[in-house]
């Protein structure tokens, strides 16, 4: 902070964008994995019936 003006701060910007990309990417991957598992389970159950 310098006379009411925030100076620097690129490290915070990089941190915020990185966490945004990381959280959205990890969540997207977990969705695909869970959907695949659930589809496999559904097809296994259908075959068993």
């Amino acid at each position, binding site marked *: 902070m310098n006379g*009411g*003006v925030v100076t620097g*701060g690129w490290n*915070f910007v990089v941190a*915020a964008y990185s966490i945004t990309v990381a959280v959205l990417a990890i*969540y997207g991957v977990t969705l695909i994995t869970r959907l695949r598992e*659930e589809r496999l389970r*559904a097809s296994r159950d259908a075959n068993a019936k």
Partner: protein
Amino acid sequence: MSKRLFLAGGVLLALACYFGLGVTFADEYLHADLSLGLPVVARTLIAFLGGLAAMILFFAAEDFEDLTQPRTLIVAGIIFMLIGSYFGLFVAPPEQYMGETQRIMYVHVPTAWFALMALTLAFVSALVFLFRGSFRWDARLEGSIEVGIVLAFLLCCQGSIWAKPTWGVWWDWDPRLTTTAVLLFAFIGVLALRRFVEDPLKRAIWSSVATIIAYVDVPIVYFSVKWWNSLHQQQSAPSTVSKPFWIPLRANAFGILLLMTGFIMLRSRIAALRVENERPPLMEEAV
């Protein structure tokens, strides 16, 4: 029918992008007036309503068997976010007082909008399930809550990272932050409740009621900065935001809107498949 609705949603989204992004881009970088004589307020309203209507049409077109729709939305969302982040990080100038840290706003503000939007969808799904009893709405409820929680968690992380250089602290128990934390934990509670109840019908009814109760906090979060003397700044409007900041903010907003819609569609499919496996034959007849 499903494809037509999806295409109609795409057309509305293109209209929203034209008035929300295209006109501003042409004005700012090409010095061309593509506004068709419409004032800023009207263009912003068209962009907002067009995006909202497109999202509703995408959900109306939802085909639980076909994965093309959510994939298309997620890919489009990533493209919008890449454009928004490029403009936000490398093109838009630093803000007069907040300097470079203001660039965090380009992801923080859209995340906040669509965290509340996802939870509003959960509220609508809860109401529709209670009135119609269709398990598709229960699946949408689960999908919307989970995506809402992910976005609300992300919102709190981005907010903390922004608060440290500007407020000097990572967290403060100010009304906006406190009500957002309450919102996050209330909806985590609703998801936890779904884990504990084994009977699909009871689970759907109880979690719908819990969602309606938890949703009471959403308007409180939104209006907290107006009702109380909050450290958090009040909502901005196009008149209070400089034009060079519009493109990254709006591109990221369209990006997160599309990602949120695609994620909710995928998550709803997981919930629907799980319910199908659990449902006894008698209940299948009833719904």
